């Protein structure tokens, strides 16, 4: 294999930059690769040069699939990172292969009968590698798509403390409610003032909405009741209107957060159940 392929590999390696530029000119205007039309030259060409210079290693490898997996998984990673859709990434690779052969034909590498035979053998080997490449890239893209969704959902899950025990959520909430109760007592009974301390109430309200969704609204109701009862007990001469509005706002904010949190949960469920190309069919 190595003997017949030497000519093709040598030409590809020696002229890697030149072939890469011809490939780039092609993907730049090919209607099947629109994502490359606006891709900067210094991002696309090195990818192709890298591919052509590694051609020998993949072509001559004793375990071509293993070598192809190593090289083309990297290609998939890079293409995915720069936002190339899977079908375009595969087609761009197909064009890379075609440009090897266009260049070889242009250089009239395979003329005689023996060379024609070599051409067929080289072509067969090249096809094998690209078959593996297509397999590896489509497999890898699916992994990357799934990984990206997982990563995006991780932040939301961390805030929702979904990995934590229910007990720790209850503990944190109890501490926050006690602190809110103490603040209310201190400001109403000691300071005789209704200044902005109620802003701090939004911390347990928002967390309760994220953690327990609609059930979290009970926390806002409880805080509203604490505020109003405290007002009635300790600030009899002051109109109730401000604290009443605050209590209503607790419930409004809590409801909005609960709705948003439910929406996020649904999105997560839908993403988990969304069709990865590698997933089994629904039953």
């Amino acid at each position, binding site marked *: 294999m190595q003997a017949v392929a030497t000519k093709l590999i040598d030409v590809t390696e020696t002229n890697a930059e030149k072939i890469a530029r011809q490939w780039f000119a092609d993907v730049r205007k090919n209607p099947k690769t629109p994502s490359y039309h606006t891709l900067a030259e210094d991002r696309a060409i090195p990818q192709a040069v890298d591919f052509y210079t590694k051609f020998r290693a993949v072509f001559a490898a004793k375990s071509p699939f293993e070598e192809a997996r190593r090289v083309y998984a990297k290609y998939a990673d890079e293409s995915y990172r720069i936002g190339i859709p899977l*079908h375009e990434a595969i087609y761009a690779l*197909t064009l890379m292969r075609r440009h090897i052969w266009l260049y070889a034909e242009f250089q009239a590498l395979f003329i005689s009968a023996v060379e024609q035979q070599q051409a*067929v053998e080289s072509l067969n080997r090249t096809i094998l590698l690209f078959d593996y490449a*297509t397999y590896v890239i489509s497999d890898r893209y699916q992994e990357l798509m799934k990984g990206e969704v997982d990563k995006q959902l991780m932040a939301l899950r961390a805030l929702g403390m979904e990995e934590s025990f229910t007990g720790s959520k209850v503990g944190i909430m109890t501490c926050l409610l006690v602190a809110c109760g103490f603040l209310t007592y201190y400001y109403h009974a000691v300071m005789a003032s209704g200044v902005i301390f109620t802003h701090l109430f939004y911390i347990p309200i928002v967390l309760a909405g994220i953690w327990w969704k609609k059930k979290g609204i009970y926390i806002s109701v409880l805080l509203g009741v604490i505020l109003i009862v405290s007002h009635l007990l300790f600030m009899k001469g002051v109109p109730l209107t401000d604290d009443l509005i605050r209590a209503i706002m607790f419930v409004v904010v809590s409801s909005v957060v609960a709705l948003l949190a439910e929406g996020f949960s649904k999105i997560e469920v*839908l993403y988990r159940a*969304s*069709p990865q190309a590698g997933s089994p069919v629904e039953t």
Partner: protein
Amino acid sequence: MKGYATKLIEVTEKHADRIASQWLGDVRVNPKTPSYHTFSDEKALSHAVAFYRNFRSLFITDKPFDAAQKFFTKYADERYSEGIPLHEAVYALILMRRHIWLFAEFQTLFVSTVEHQQAAESLTRTLLLFDYATYVIAERYEALMKRETEERFRRDGKPGPSRQTVAAGGHGKQVR
């Protein structure tokens, strides 16, 4: 085009069932196509036979991309609705192509120097066809996955249409 390709096309059409059986034997044990290991023989064979029987129309057409788009969109829809992952659907197709050539080699179709030249040209044409096929299938799978996800969102997470329905909703149409 028609001249040199006739031999390959004729052999493929004539022995469609036999080549399809050989292909089935391969995907059944190939570690890259695990979904086919438990797939029904009848269904899998019908994929391959349909492909081999349509090989002439795909091979000889003046507009190979359009013909490939029509045929392989349907192929993608069917494989998607059967739950075959993209990389396996593509690899199974690659194996279909290989089995044409394995059969041709086994039949010693291309022996003389002129025939070698014909083999190289037939190979190039077949390759072009499969390049288009891979492109069409990958694009179609992406569109079907997107459509299925959108359907689920529209239904607010409730059980949505099956993959069969999603795929059947766009036979031969461009989703995006």
